[in-house]
Structures are given as C-alpha cells and as structure tokens.
C-alpha cells in the first residue's frame, strides 16, 4: 500500500512532468526529506495533511524551472513537422487544388495555435526557437518541393505572402510568451 508521503510525492511528480529529470528528482528528494522530518514530530499522515497542495507545489517549481531540454526539443521538432503540410503538398498528388489549399491553410492555423500554446506553456525562448524552426521548415519544404516536383511560387505577391506568413510564425512564437512573462506577477527576490 502506498504511504501518504509517497502518494503526495507522486502527485507532485505528476505536476512536474516535462521538467528536467534531474531537477525533478532533486525536488522530490528534498520534499521527501522534509516530510520525513515533519513526520518525526507528529506522524506521516499529519505531516502530509499540513503540507501545501501538491498541485500548487508542483506549479511553483514548474514556473521556476520550465520544461527540460527533452521537452523543449520535442516542441521544436513538432513545430518543424507541423510546418511542412502548411504548404499545399497535396497539389502534387491527385487532389483538387481547392482541397489542397484548404488543407494547407488548416495546417497553418493549427501551427499558429500550436506555437502560441508552446510560447505560453514553455516561455518565449522556446516559442521563439519553435517559431524560427517552423519558418525555416516552410522555406526548406518549398526548396525541397522545387527540387523534387519543380514547384515554384508563381509571382511576387505569392512570394510576399509566403515570406510574410513564414516570418509571422517567429513573431507568433515570441509574443505570447513574452507578454505572459511581462504581465505575470513575479516573485520578489533579492
């Protein structure tokens, strides 16, 4: 049977998913040590009952440390992958042009929402990198399409639209996270 302290620490651990593994382990080890000291004065159940709600404790550490490198890399990788179908790839298959373009626009909307979510959850630095990666991915995909299928952007306005929408992804990756950081109340420190 799981002890009250173990159950508490499991809940804290769940709330810190995505953080660097070593930091997370160290936080849990320190909280376990704290609960053991508190339990020595009363008992384990009371020590756990007197502790702050695990979700709040986890959220505080998550705000402090953010996501670990593995999750940050995954966020950027997914941005790169999502940016690829924002070009009308289906035009080169046996699909109606209107449907191919609609699919590309749908993926673009999805990518924008994703980048905003990343920026808000993981901060402006990760959002910015994800936005830049998505932008580069679009240019890379276009270049690849040109090489493989002879795809070209038809005119200057097409280039303008493509470049502007690609660069906008960088802004979208940066702004929400920066705004959140700016407006969020910060802990008072020395």
């Amino acid at each position, binding site marked *: 049977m799981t002890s009250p302290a173990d159950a508490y620490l499991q809940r804290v651990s769940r709330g810190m998913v995505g953080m660097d593994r070593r930091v997370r382990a160290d*936080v849990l*080890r*320190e*909280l*376990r*040590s*704290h609960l*053991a*000291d*508190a339990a*020595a004065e009363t008992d384990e159940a009371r020590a756990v009952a007197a*502790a*702050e709600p695990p979700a*709040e*404790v986890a959220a*505080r*550490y998550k705000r*402090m440390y953010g996501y670990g490198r593995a999750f940050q890399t995954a966020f950027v990788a997914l941005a790169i992958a999502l940016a690829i179908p924002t070009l009308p790839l289906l035009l080169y298959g046996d699909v109606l042009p209107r449907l191919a373009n609609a699919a590309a626009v749908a993926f673009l909307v999805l990518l924008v929402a994703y980048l905003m979510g990343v920026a808000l959850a993981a901060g402006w630095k990760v959002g910015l990198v994800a936005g830049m990666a998505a932008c580069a991915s679009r240019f890379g995909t276009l270049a690849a399409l040109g090489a493989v299928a002879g795809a070209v952007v038809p005119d200057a306005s097409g280039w303008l639209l493509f470049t502007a929408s690609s660069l906008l992804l960088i802004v979208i990756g940066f702004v929400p996270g920066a705004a959140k950081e700016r407006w969020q109340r910060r*802990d*008072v*420190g*020395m």
Partner: protein
Amino acid sequence: MPEVSSEWTAELKKGSIQLCLLALLAAEAKYGFQLIKEMRELSGGFFDVKEGTLYPALRRLEERGFVRSAWVERDVGVPRKYYTLTDRGRTALAEAKAVWTDMERSMDAILRSSR
C-alpha cells in the same frame, strides 16, 4: 474584518523571506525543516513558511550564488539537504541588513508622526 488585506501582509513577508534565510544561515549550515522551525520560533509565529515557499526561495538563493547545498547521508532516516552561506551570500546579507536598517529607521520616523 480587518481593513488591511492579507495579500499586503503576505507580500511584506514574501519580500523578507530571503533575507531571513540568509540571516539564519549566517552561523552554520542548516536544512529546510530546521529553517522553517527556526523562522517560526524566532518570529513568534509571524513567519510560518510552507515548504512550497521555502525550497524554491532557497533554490533561487543558490542560483544567485548566495548559498550552496549538499546532501548529507545519515545513519538513521532519509538524507537531508544542507544549505550553507557563501561569501557572496555573506556580502548580500550585509548589504540587505543595511537596507533593512535604513527602511526600519525611515518607517519608524514616518509612523511616529502619525501618533
């Protein structure tokens, strides 16, 4: 019902916790639970800091280089993480104490004028 909001009191406390921690660590290395107890006892219960506030505050002090930590194994019971004041922390403590003394003097003068 008090006119002064609990948030204001909480902010005052929050802004003072790091100074309290540096002061408590000035004499010797201490672990988290010990710091919580000492802070509560020395302040007559005014600083009743929870673990979710204390440990992040200690980690911030460590990131600033004001304290360093080390796990210490024990013969009985789980290991404890001890925090020690660094030279930078000692300098920061001296500076913060000077600021605190100035503020205390200033506030006292202002509050005395209200009597």
